[in-house]
């Protein structure tokens, strides 16, 4: 995932615990904080999606002023998370995230 141009780092997060399973991040990115907050968001989004009756989430793209957060929940309860520059090729990054989620199981 981190080979995709514009991806600044990636991590695997345990959704239930909000803990980092594996990470490859740039030094200025706080992996533990990102993991805890992404997992919290995943749990809340999951409940919102269940309430809306639209099934489980497959991919999220949070566009921010100075970058983006891309997330794919794997079936095993692991979140595959990438932090990217604003100009990242989202389509390519999404494919890599989905591939990683498939490998994680």
């Amino acid at each position, binding site marked *: 995932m981190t080979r995709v141009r514009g991806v600044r780092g990636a991590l695997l997060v*345990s959704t*239930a615990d*909000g803990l980092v399973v594996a990470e490859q991040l740039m030094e200025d990115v706080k992996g*533990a904080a990102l993991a805890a907050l992404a*997992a919290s968001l995943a749990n809340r989004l999951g409940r919102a999606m269940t309430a809306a009756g639209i099934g489980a989430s497959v991919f999220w793209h949070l566009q921010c002023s100075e970058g983006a957060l891309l997330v794919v929940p794997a079936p095993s309860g692991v979140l595959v998370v990438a932090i990217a520059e604003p100009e990242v090729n989202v389509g390519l990054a999404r494919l890599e995230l989905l591939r990683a989620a498939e490998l994680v199981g």
Partner: protein
Amino acid sequence: MTTRAVEGWTLEPLKRFVGEASARLVLLMTPAGQVMAQHGFSRALDVMSAAALGTAIMASTAEIARQLGQPPFAAVTHQGERHGIFLAGVTTHRGAIVALVVYDLDVSSVGLVQLFFEQLRTELHAASPKTGVPKQVLAADFERQLSDSLDTLFGR
């Protein structure tokens, strides 16, 4: 849910922590089990039991660490089916504090609690008064002190 403190300087950091980490119950106490602040408890008996058990767990794990020739464990976490328990120590100008946090797994997580606990640790250290030594509780005064603390903690 109420948040109350015997030691006033612990109140604001505790309130922030509870809000950020979505904790259900929190106790801040001395390693001897004297309660300094609480959030979420509705009965004095529960506070006393939780304080005694929490400090006992900390003492036991510190002894295990000592026997292993290790420094004391930074934190102890236990995950149940619906709730998680997090126990850790904080160093302040007024001495060591033990924090006991109980959180619901459907609204919080150990990662979230750990993350905001670091902030609580920093804020408690910064807020603790540098002057004045905390009073030692003598056996003769213990019951009255305990009763006074519980009155404050439950707004009586």
